[in-house]
Structures are given as C-alpha cells and as structure tokens.
C-alpha cells in the first residue's frame, strides 16, 4: 500500500492509542485483562476490517496496514488483543470456504461486538497448522471434536476458531465459548492477560460451524499464522520504540556524580547497541512485509519473511528491555515504573507464536529448502 496511506493510518493510530499507564494498570487488574469498551472504539476506527477484502465488506488493505496499527498498539502497550483477535482471526476467516458463516463472523468482529480468536496449537514451539491437538470422530451424521489446544491468547473470546484433524486433512470450526463439551482453562500471562487452554470433550459440530474444509483450511491457517507472526513482530517493534524513549529520557535527566548518567560513555554505547537492535528490527520488518505482500509470494516465502522479522524482533525486544532495566538501575525493576508494563508485554509477545530461537530454526530450514529448489529466498 502507498506510503501516504500508510502514514495517514499510522498517524490516526497514534492519535488514538496513547500510552496511559493508569488505564493499563486498571485493565491488568480486571478478569479479562483488557477493556471491551476500548475494543469497541478500536472497531470504530475500522481496524478490524483492514485485512478483509473489499468484496467481503472490508477495507482490503495489505498486511503493512495491520502492522502499522500493531506497532502503535505496542508503543502504547494496549492490552486489547488486536493481533490475536483481529489479524489472526480475520486472515483465516477470509480464506475459508463457508462464505455465509465467514460473513456473519467478520461482521461481528468488525463492529467489535464479538471477539474471535484461533485455537490451533497443541504444544510449545509449534508454528505449523498441523500442530493442533484436536481430532474429529464421526458418529453417523454427527461429528464430535475432542482434544486440547494451548496458548490461546484470548481466554475471554466469544468464539474460538478451532483447528481439527478430520478425515481428509485439517478443518477449522467456529465454536462459541458456551458450547457443550468445551472447557476453558485460563492461565495467567506475565502481562496480566489471560491465556487459555481449551479442552474439547465430544464437542458436537455441524457443517454450518465449519469455517474451512480440508480444501483450504491448512493454507488459510498457515497464511493467518504468518500474518500474525509479522504483526506480533510489529507490536514488539513498537514496544522497543517506547522503551528506548523512556530509557533515553532517563539517561538525560538522572544525575549521579554531578552529571547526567547519559554522559557516561559506557552507558552511551549500551544505549546505541539497543537502539541498533530496534532499527534492525524495523528494517527487517519492513523488508519482510514487502516480501509477504508481494503478489507472487509463495507460502514458503511468506513463512520465511515472517520468521526473519519475528526472530529479530523477539530477541531484540528482550535485549532492549533487559538493558533498559540495567540502565535505569533498581527503579527499572519496580512494578510501579512503566517499564514493567512493557517488559512483561514483550515477554508474552516474544514467546507467543514462536520465540526467537524457534523462528531462527524455521528460517534456516526454509532458506535451505528454498535454496535447494532454486527459488530466490
């Protein structure tokens, strides 16, 4: 998308989402970890339909638009799950093969009325669609889903789109949280958000619940995961921006030995090194988005791009946060100082959808296989 449109969107996002630690702390203390009212306001910004094609009633923008929003959400440390309950879900829903169901879910997502996320992962370190721990059992005309999914980012979701192994491959089913047989166990995440482990015991589903059949489910989920991985990298980049701002301001104003501590060369050089990590993350993200959005990008190339950006952003964000604490001294480790909000968010996002090491390995494996097949990486 054009640089002008992108910067308009980024400006609008910046005007909307401002760091407000009082609100963040209140949200953190709530049961869901975020604020439904703010979620609806985000919907009014049109953010939840940026990735939905115009033919399906959305804005039809490329992924760099969603990444720009995610970056600002990172900067302001918003706990509202934009990536998990908008990027991830809309990218999958728009690639399914049940237009009627997709339309109603996308509408409900777009207006902020319903929170929809994906459940697809069985164990830590998995980033492929096939890793779901849910299986179908057909009993006559009825289909029952059983198994479990973990690391579902939004425990408070109204609807879970669950990936399940079915005869013929993988399928995606939309299951409301109240559905019989679905148990939602919450796990507290470091940033105050609630992550979920879903346990399904003979959850009855029908064709009407099926978002994507084996004809397209794997591809839809793979696309959605890579899109969300890139947007989580963008969110981490936004976090780094804000953490560096806080840290540099502290270095300019905090005095010891009669001088601002930022005048000491040892600290200046550390500050430069973490700033370089942020700049590298930004450059890697921008390049990856371009490759991801290229018209001729193959699924493998999209995964390669996503892993390139996330491997850098995840490791860089943790490096930046760790050094930021060190540069602040003891105040940096307190809960009261805002750095804690960013550090804990970075821990969650760096770990989610594959951490730095996981993506480094995937990047290595993919670049080897692309090199063997002679495709440009």
């Amino acid at each position, binding site marked *: 998308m054009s640089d002008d449109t992108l910067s308009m969107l980024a400006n609008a996002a910046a005007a909307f989402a401002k760091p407000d630690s009082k609100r963040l702390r209140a949200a953190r203390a709530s049961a869901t970890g975020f604020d439904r009212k703010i979620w609806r306001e985000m919907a009014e910004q049109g953010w939840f339909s940026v990735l939905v094609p115009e033919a399906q009633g959305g804005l039809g923008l490329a992924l760099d638009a969603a990444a720009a929003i995610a970056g600002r959400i990172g900067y302001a440390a918003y706990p509202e799950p934009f990536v998990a309950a908008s990027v991830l879900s809309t990218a999958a829903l728009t690639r399914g093969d049940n237009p009627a169901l997709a339309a109603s879910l996308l509408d409900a997502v777009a207006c902020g009325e319903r929170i929809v996320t994906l459940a697809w992962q069985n164990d830590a370190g998995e980033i492929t669609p096939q890793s779901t721990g849910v299986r179908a059992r057909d009993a006559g005309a009825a289909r029952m889903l059983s198994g479990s999914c973990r690391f579902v980012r939004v425990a408070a979701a109204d609807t879970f789109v669950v990936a399940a192994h079915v005869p013929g491959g993988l399928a995606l089913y939309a299951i409301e949280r109240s559905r019989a047989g679905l148990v939602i166990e919450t796990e507290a995440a470091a940033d105050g958000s609630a992550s979920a482990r879903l346990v399904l015991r003979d959850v009855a589903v029908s064709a009407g619940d099926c978002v994507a059949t084996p004809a397209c489910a794997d591809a839809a989920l793979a696309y959605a995961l890579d899109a969300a991985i890139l947007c989580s990298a963008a969110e981490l980049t936004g976090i780094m921006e804000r953490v560096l701002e806080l840290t*540099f301001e502290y*270095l*300019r104003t905090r005095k010891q030995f009669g*001088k*601002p501590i*930022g*005048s000491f*060369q040892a600290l*200046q*050089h550390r*500050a*430069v*090194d973490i*700033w*370089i990590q942020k*700049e*590298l993350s930004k*450059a*890697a993200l*921008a*390049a*990856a988005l371009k490759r991801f959005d290229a018209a001729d990008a193959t699924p493998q190339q999209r995964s390669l791009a996503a892993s*390139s950006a996330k*491997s*850098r952003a995840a490791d860089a964000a943790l490096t930046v946060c760790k050094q930021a604490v060190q540069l602040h001294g003891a105040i940096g480790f307190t809960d009261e100082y805002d750095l804690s909000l960013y550090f804990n968010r970075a821990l969650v996002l760096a770990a989610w959808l594959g951490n730095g*090491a996981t993506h*480094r*390995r995937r*990047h*290595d494996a993919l*670049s080897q296989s692309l090199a063997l097949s002679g495709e440009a990486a």
Partner: protein
Amino acid sequence: MSYGVLQERDWNALADEEFRALVRADFEAHYPQALRYAPRRLRWHEIRDWYLRMAKKGWIAPNWPAEYGGMGLAPAKLLIFIEEQERFGIARFQDHGVLMVGPVLQRFGTEEQRRRFLPSILDCEHIWCQGYSEPGAGSDLAGLSTRARREGDHYIIDGHKIWTTLAQDGTHMFVLVRTDPDAKKQDGISFLLVDIKAPGITVRPIRDMAGHEEFCEVFFDGVRTPVANLVGEENRGWTIAKSLLTFERIFIGSPKLPEYGLAVLENLARARGVLGDPLFRDRFAAVKLDVVHLGDLYARFAATLVRGEALGPDISMLKIWATETFQRIAELGLEVAGDYGGLSGEVSIGDADIDVLSLFYKSRVPTIYGGSNEIQRNILARQVLDLPS
C-alpha cells in the same frame, strides 16, 4: 576542456536491471578469476592490468560526473555498479584519487587544479594516498600536528603520517596539515596536495599481523609543495576532509563482504563435516539472519540515496552492524576450523582448499578504520540519540 574518454552511452537512461546485467556481464567476461576475493589488498603491479582496462573503457570513475570524464552515474546506478564489483569480488586498487581527490577538486578545487590532476587520475598515471592519521592523532584526527608553514610560493611540511594505505605504490598524497597552530584545533587545518617523490619524504611500509604490507608510515622532513596545491582556503581543510565522509560511508556497510564470508564459512563447515550439527546450525542460522537484516538495513539507506537525499549521521549504525557481523562470521569460521585455525594460507581440508585465517584477519580491521566503531557509537549517542556530553 574535456576529460577522459567519451562514455559509450548515457548509462542513466538504461533500466536498473539492464544496467546491472551489462556491468555483470563485463566483469564476468574480463576480470581474472584468480584475483576474485583477494585475501589482502593487492599491490598496483598485481591489479594494474584490470584498472588500466577500466581506464581505457571510461569506467575508472563511476562516481564522477561525465563532464569530468566519469561515468556520471546517478545514485541508483552507482550503487549497482559497486554492488556488482563487490559481488564478483573485484579487488580495489589504491583508489583514493577516484574516491576522494576527484570529488574534492570538483567541488573545492580551482579550474587549474582540476586540469592538472583529474586527467592523470583517470588514466591511472597518478596514484593518490591519504595522509590523515598520525601517531598522535587517530580517533582524535583533528588533533593532528604535522605542520606546514608558508615560505614564498611554497608550503614547507614537517611531520609524520601513519596508516597510509599502499603508499609504496603511490605517486601523490593529499595531506591534512596544521597551518595555524594557535587556532581552535579544527580551524587551523589545511588540505594540501603533495608529490610523493618530493625531496624530504620517506615512505616506510608497516608489516601487519597477517604478514602483509598494506599500510605505511610517511615522514615529512622540510618537504616543499607549491601554494598552488592548496585545496580550498587555508585553514578550511577540516570542512573538506569531513565532506568526504558522506556518500562513501554507505559502502563500508555493504552486505556483500559478509555474504562472501558466509559462503566461505559454509564451505568450511561442509569440509569439516559439521554442516548438519545442531550446535553449528543454530549459530550459523543466527549469523545468516544477521546478514539478511544487514541487507534490509542497507536497502533502507540505499533508498535514501536513490531518492537523492543526503545520508544522516545514523548511517554509522550500518558500519557497526556490517563490520561486527563480518567479525562474528569469521570468528565462527575459526572455531569450526579447529586445528586448521592455526595454519596460514590455503589449507587442504578434506576435498577443499580453504584459506581460514585470511578471512579472520580481514575481519579485524574494518571495525577500526573509517572511524573506529567506538567513535561511530559516540556519534550515534550524541547526534542521533541526543544523549548529553
């Protein structure tokens, strides 16, 4: 007057990829295979034939405007030209005449100076060396103490320059000298051109750790150079010296050398049988991503140049990342080499002949030259991060 040979065509009128293909084809057809990715800076007698061919072809000065006998390449084309040189591993010659003296004379020199010096740079008759660093002025370059005092139509130079690349092959030198010892240190410096054969100049090569003689000391003992060889105004040399550090700074951050390092590392790992070893694989994957992201960062700065905008002080991060990434690659290579890491020159490892140490040695220097990486960090801290001094 006209300078150099006439260009065959207006290169900027070609599409980028067409130009790239044309340059690549020329290099691949004519550059000697044996000189690709030379393990050290080559001496003039080793690389002369190639650069005389480039001179004859009108390709010796890709960065100069066509009116001065250069290729007149716009930034995008110039980046392509240099990327292709690096991709093919074409050895540099002592190119300070093309990279520095030419652009300086075109901007700050007199018409007479341009006529006198530019043609001999274009036909490689003059080989220029840079006289900047001194034993007492390294990172603190403005603290230099080589003196020049005016005597009639001449300056008399006394002092000592060091780390002068390949001065053994040089015919001329541009030197920063102190002409006003009482002024604030940046304000008393002038930019002088000197004939290396002038009486009173002694060149002494310095043998480096790798056993090569790539740089020299140059002693000045009452050396006379005409006042006509002063570039710009007296005591305004610092501005000229600083102006040289703009465009060129992107090249030190090019990903091509680290990419070549990765290829050597991969060959080495294959020869040592560790290519599939998970420990090696993880570290290799990490440096590979470091290089990919260097490329992404380089592309951002290249785009700035192509848009016709000036590079800012943030370009320093590219130098830091490029040179330190190259070091990590070379260090991993040394570790993978095991016992071979103590053998110099080409070593036969299994079926392969690999020069382990030259890559390692080569990686040690770029973090020092062109403003050490510590100086680059100081620049970023003050000028970009706005930290207090």
